[in-house]
């Protein structure tokens, strides 16, 4: 009887007054997703031999359409990536060819970084993809976070489960661990440099670490971003790749 009473106390007092996980996730989506956005970014890839930085400009509309143009270094300049729904094309000015990437190639690294094409393409709302559960709270770099465990509710996701540390005040993920179906940790991301842009919180720097690769990871920094701006329709067409 005494043991049962203790268990009862632990169950109801020890679990903590966690808010609704779906509500947290919806607030995260409200910060991270937008009708459209335009941004310039630098991607610093830390390899075993050296580090290199690639700059690009991106236009994206919802989770279906996006275009990225690489600006530097010289070898990459003019290379463009167009995503329309679940299809991806890459244009190279050197070879003047447009190649469609599909199948297992989407899991390959982009520019030798810790991001795959799949990672680059995934822009759907977390609430559409995952069932969420609050599994605890932790403090990260002085910020109180909810720890959420997300389990995929659809088949076509790159990561079956995610563990997300969400800032309790700003509802921005500060850290994520991405797992395969077999439970293996595939990637870890750390989000920082959170700023207020157009009434929403947004992390300008993300450190991606592919846990299956050597190296110090890839730092993705957004130098400039605009939300809900006008994007010319022609940009999301294959014809725009060669322009």
């Amino acid at each position, binding site marked *: 009887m005494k043991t049962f009473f203790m268990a009862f106390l632990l169950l109801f007092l020890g679990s903590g007054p966690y808010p609704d996980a779906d509500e947290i996730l919806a607030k995260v989506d409200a910060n991270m997703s937008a009708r459209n956005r335009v941004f310039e970014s630098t991607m610093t890839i830390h390899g075993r031999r050296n580090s*290199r930085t690639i700059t690009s400009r991106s236009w994206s509309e919802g989770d279906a359409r996006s275009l990225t143009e690489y600006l530097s270094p010289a070898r990459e300049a003019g290379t463009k990536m167009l995503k329309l729904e679940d299809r991806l094309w890459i244009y190279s000015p050197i070879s003047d*060819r447009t190649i469609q990437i599909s199948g297992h190639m989407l899991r390959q*690294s982009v520019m030798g970084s810790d991001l795959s094409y799949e990672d680059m393409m995934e822009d759907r709302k977390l609430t559409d993809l995952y069932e969420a559960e609050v599994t605890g709270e932790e403090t990260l770099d002085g910020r109180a976070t909810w720890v959420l465990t997300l389990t995929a509710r659809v088949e076509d996701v790159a990561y079956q489960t995610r563990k997300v540390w969400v800032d309790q005040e700003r509802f921005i993920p500060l850290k994520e661990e991405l797992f395969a179906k077999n439970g293996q940790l595939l990637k870890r991301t750390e989000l920082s440099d959170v700023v207020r842009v157009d009434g929403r919180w947004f992390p300008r720097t993300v450190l991606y670490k592919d846990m299956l690769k050597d190296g110090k990871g890839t730092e993705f920094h957004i130098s400039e971003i605009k939300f809900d701006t006008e994007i010319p329709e022609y940009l999301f067409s294959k014809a725009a790749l060669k322009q």
Partner: protein
Amino acid sequence: MIHFLLKGILRDPKRSRLPIIVVSIGVFLTVLLSTWLGGVFGDMVDMNARFDTGHVKIMTRAYAENSAQLPNDLALLGVNDLIDSLETVYPDMDWTPRIRFGGLIDVPDEEGETRAQGPAGGLAVDLLSPDTREIERLDIRGSLVRGRMPETQGEALISDAFAQKLDLEPGEAITFFGSTMYGSMSFYNFTVVGTIRFGSVAMDRGTIIVDIEDARQALDMEDAAGEVLGYFAGGRYDDARAVALRSAFNAEIGERGDEFAPEMLALRDQNDLAGMMDYMDVVAELFVFIFVGAMAVVLWNTGLLGGLRRYTEFGIRLALGEAKGAIYRSLLMEAVLIGLIGSVIGTLAGLGLSAVIQHYGLDFGSMVPNTGMMLPTVYRTKITAQAFYIGFFPGVLSMLLGNALAGIGIYKRQTAQLFKELEV
């Protein structure tokens, strides 16, 4: 004496027919297995050496650790200087850089849109230098199925099966899409000028062969190479020499270098070949041993039967005063002669069938496993000098052993009982 015994063997064939047949079959099988093993293992080692491992191979330490993933970001730099110094220190060897790479081959339609696509394994070798030995070493010219050899940069060969899969004809353009040494995207246009078939599962699946300078441009690998392969003069692998060379080279580099320092591997250090090579030696000896043992038992039995048949003959010879030792020695001498006759017949038959299999080969393509080891699909015997004499060991030895055991009975005969036994 030999002349006398030979006359006996020829004039009384009933006495020698069965032993000769047994010895011939045993020797035939020994010779055939010897040439088969030599051919199969030799082809495997040779194919690995030519296409993948070299007789020795130099990579960076970091590349060697992950070589199966073709990590060109960890490739050797300053390759021209490295090869110059290797040629100075080891002038009797041929050193050649190679780049192995992976990526996607994209075939455009008239509009430049993707018509067909497939993952490719690339091999970049020196195709265009006037003094290159790579074309001969890889037998590229002999492996051409359609089209011609590359003559200028930007021309490529792809495996015939891959070309058929992509519905690609010689003369058509393709684009290679992959990663440069530094991780950037690589797009490089080639014209396919020919298709090839090497007769190896690993090489005939999705291979593209290009000139190394093209690969260097495509993969941003100026003066770099994933591997530098070394071949002994004459193209014949010498395991002891390769191992000694590897040990000396690595000792010279020692602890000086970092993870990008060059490291040499001998052929036996790669593709699990050490186990196979050791296994090959053991198996060859084991076969001879098994045949000697098995045939000795059979010939012992045959000798016992012969001894029974010649019981009277030995009795008369003993009665006439011939020494037991002399009879035993003549029996052994006769066994040697029969063993030699059987060995000659068996060796000729074994060499004959081996020559046929060496010429036509046996195709095991559908049974060859999909492994990292380079495995040919058509296997052939290989007639070496050893095949001409290896059968004589089990042939003569087993006959001698069988008769030596069977002939011991001669010493058990009691002279006093001879006339009674002979019923004279």
